[in-house]
């Protein structure tokens, strides 16, 4: 188990766990802020930079997220778009038995790359 840091903002918690080959962000709670990007974007950008420098895959694990407003989707898809055009490796994990997660995160497959550098994975509980 690598280094773990936890970021909390109101109802949202993002736990960052760094291992030898990946940096995992585990999202939990609810993301319901007016401008969630103010909290989320700096974390994502920092992780993306570190993963690029270290050649690690970023794993965004949303399985335990209870709810997110549409403003939360914005910083996530911007990072996926940039990863798609760049060299970053990103995996999005979601809970496919939850309809709201399946509906939201399966749509992010438009950002997947054929070489699986960017991949979207529905997980079974």
């Amino acid at each position: 188990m690598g280094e773990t840091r936890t970021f909390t903002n109101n109802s949202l918690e993002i736990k960052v766990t760094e291992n030898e080959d990946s940096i995992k962000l585990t999202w939990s709670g609810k993301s319901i802020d007016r401008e969630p990007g103010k909290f989320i974007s700096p974390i994502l950008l920092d992780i993306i930079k570190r993963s690029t420098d270290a050649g690690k895959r970023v794993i965004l694990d949303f399985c335990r997220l209870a709810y997110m407003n549409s403003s939360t989707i914005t910083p996530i898809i911007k990072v996926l778009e940039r990863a798609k055009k760049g060299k970053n490796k990103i995996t999005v994990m979601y809970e496919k038995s939850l309809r709201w997660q399946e509906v939201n995160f399966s749509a992010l497959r438009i950002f997947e790359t054929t070489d699986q550098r960017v991949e979207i994975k529905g997980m079974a509980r």
Partner: protein
Amino acid sequence: MGVYQKADERNGRERSYARTRKGSKGAGKFDDREGPTPQGKAGPGATASRKAIDMTLGPHWDQIEEVRRRTRAFLKNQGLSKELIDAVTMVSSELVENGMKYGCFEDPENGLTFNLNIVEKNVIVEVTHPTSPSAAPHLRRLDKTIQWIRGFQDPFQAYLEKLKEVARRPITDSESGLGLVRIAYEGKSIIDFFVAEDNALNVSAVAGIEKGLWR
């Protein structure tokens, strides 16, 4: 009727549900009403029953969670599916968020009104809030977005297009623009709006209870 007419009226369609207005305004007034139901639930057996949540809110972001909580509890009490409850709660939340972002609340007597009704097998969410004289650009954008969504046969395609568009914007641009199309896609709802004579903007989303995955 103000400058903007109901988008549905322009399309030659009519709303099939009745609407009432509560006269009182001011922050923090809640009224959950329940009408008679033929089978005690609002599911497939429900006909012309009317069940409602009426809330008048101040422009306080924290109150959105109360809208979500009441919506969820109310729909659960009606025996609706978890999928529908999640979807309508999302719709309620997104519409109230938009109302709080774009409403004009300079007069403390003018709050944001949230209504949820179940009428004729439809779940109807309505948010009404005062607008400022400078709201015209927002109203034009709202009208354009709703018409744009309706131009797609499948709201999923509209959602994908919006995802691509938003993803290309600068990382510092905090504008989402995904709320309405998410309501159409994930919420399986028809969105409509009108501006009343007092310049209050009413935005509604109507979802059929029996459609698709709802039951």
